[in-house]
């Protein structure tokens, strides 16, 4: 029974990782860049909830999502767009700069000390002897709904198909009349919205927030995206859930718990050595 609780917890944490990983993977697929500032959008989302929490929790959540979308687009326009066509490394360094910038900005506004953000007291579901918090269940349910919705959006709508087209071949997509700038903007908007929701759900798990709040989930979700095959949307979901379950299972065993992070990264290295493009990543032959 204990194992079942660990599993549910792991799936719920995996859902959060998957949401963040989706942002990484979509941006990588379409703009071919590693957006290292993505983790910090989670942190901004959390602080944005804090601002309006005293007024109304629902309003706070809506504001947080909208603010993150705006921020994502603004960062893309200001920092990444001038570098389109430059070397990937330059874009990566800029993303790191943006990440530092957001962290220090949050520290200036809200201070370095952790702040408590208790969104709502949801209580726990008790079945016999075991209890699972409602927050975990809501997270799990919402992440499943979001993933299904995103898959349908990409498969069925015109914008979604344009996104796939851009990720497969940018020049061909442009020749077919796809507005690349527009698609990249939408990708950043969706990624940032997912990140702000991930921030909300992680606050339901642990209700404290500080300026470096997004760094660790960011790196872990990036790992998840690479495990699943970066650029692949189902891959990000699979990688996120796998990583979440592994983390919760490892943390539940006392002797293994301190090494959880090492184990997660070791899994990444092993998977990449066996399958260099991740579990669901497509292999691209390099043409001479």
């Amino acid at each position: 029974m204990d194992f079942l609780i660990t599993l549910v917890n792991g799936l719920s944490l995996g859902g959060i990782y998957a949401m963040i990983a989706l942002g990484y993977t979509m941006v990588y697929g379409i703009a071919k860049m590693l957006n290292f500032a993505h983790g910090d959008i989670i942190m901004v989302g959390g602080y944005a909830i804090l601002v309006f929490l005293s007024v109304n929790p629902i309003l706070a959540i809506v504001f947080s999502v909208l603010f993150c979308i705006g921020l994502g687009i603004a960062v893309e326009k200001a920092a990444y767009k001038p570098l389109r066509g430059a070397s990937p490394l330059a874009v990566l360094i800029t993303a790191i700069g943006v990440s530092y910038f957001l962290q220090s900005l949050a520290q200036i506004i809200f201070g370095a000390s952790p702040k408590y953000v208790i969104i709502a007291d949801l209580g726990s579901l008790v079945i016999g002897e075991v209890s699972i918090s409602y927050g975990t269940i809501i997270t799990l349910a919402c992440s499943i709904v979001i993933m299904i919705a995103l898959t349908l959006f990409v498969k069925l709508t015109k914008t979604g198909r344009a996104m796939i087209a851009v990720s497969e071949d940018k020049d061909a997509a442009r020749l077919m009349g796809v507005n690349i700038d527009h698609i990249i903007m939408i990708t950043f908007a969706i990624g940032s919205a997912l990140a702000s929701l991930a921030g909300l759900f992680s606050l339901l798990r642990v209700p404290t927030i500080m300026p470096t709040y997004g760094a660790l989930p960011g790196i872990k979700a990036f790992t998840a995206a690479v495990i699943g095959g970066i650029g692949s949307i189902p891959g990000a979901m699979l990688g996120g859930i796998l990583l979440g379950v592994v983390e919760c299972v490892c943390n539940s065993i006392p002797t293994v718990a301190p090494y959880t992070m090492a184990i997660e990264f070791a899994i990444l290295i092993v998977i990449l050595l066996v399958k260099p493009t991740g579990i669901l990543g497509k292999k691209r032959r390099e043409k001479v």
Partner: protein
Amino acid sequence: MEKLKSLFKKIKWKYAVNYVAIGAIALVLTALTMSGGIKQSDLFLLEKITMNIILAVSLSLVVGFLGELSLGHAGFMCVGAYFGGITSMLLESSGIMAGDGVLSFVISMVVGAAVAGVCGFIIGLPALRLRGDYLAIVTLAFGEIVKTIFQNVTFEIGGKTVGGPIGIRTPRFDKQYFFIIGFVLVLIAIAVIQNLIRSKHGRAITAIRDNEIAAKATGINVTKYKLCGFIVSAVFAGIAGVMYSFANSNVTASVFDYNKSIEILVMVVLGGMGNISGAIISATFITFLDVRLQSVLTGDLAVLNDMIYALVLILVVIYNNAPALRPFREKYNARKLLSRFFGFFRNKHGYADDEGKWDRVPTKIDMDELLSVDVIVNESVQKPDKEEKK
């Protein structure tokens, strides 16, 4: 006299300038310390600068010349710091020699560098199968794994348990003179890496960076040179780590996190990819600025330090790389200004003979530009489409 003149002509001053400048600075500083003209805080700064130069130059070999992004350089440093520190502690507790002497430093350095080199070999292996971003995440993972392991493992030395989250207490080298050893090591690191790059092997390494398939086709042993690049880079990072353990009385693994790796990478990128002198200058400048700003901006203002750093980073990278600014950059750049003042920086082609003509790692787009016929997609292709819709 004639012989001396011909020798003078043979020396490529562009390369010698690094040694001459650093040697001269080291001599001046040594003289100043002897006469007591340097404050303790400045000595601390000097130690940090020498360490960061070694780190930046060694990372430059992998990122700038081998063309592989490494986000785990602090991991090698961590291995060096721990193994070097433990060696010196063992030497001290077993009573063979004092832990803070020069000989102890040399032995620790050899051990630390060797273990870091082995780690470099281990990280070089995935590099044979993976490329680009995938390799970057593997190096990041390596750094985090090393950090997590050293944060939790404890050792028994001389009857005492050390290690774990509080780290190890290492012998502290005499502060007054440690920077001299630092400068010697900097000169060694520059000499080894610069000569490696200028040799036949170095040309093989840059050939792999420019086009791996073409390099393989011309008979370059890609496996050997990739591993070689990673190992040399890791060895020097390990040496910097041993220096860290001797420059501080306490080594904790949490120092060597992902942010430390990024800090080193930023030095390399701001100095200019594939440019050793640039890496040295930017490592010196950034460390200086960082330490000085930390002492000026204290308390609530400390945050501004990070903010300035982040903004400068973003602006410099955009200025250096934005395609739209290319004409402006070609008109006004540091190399042209320098060559106007110092004649010997310039030769016939405007480049040094064996220097790659890329000021950054070429991307697939660059290669396409070179190899294919231009197909210019302009607005006119899209416009009729829009009008039809109306």
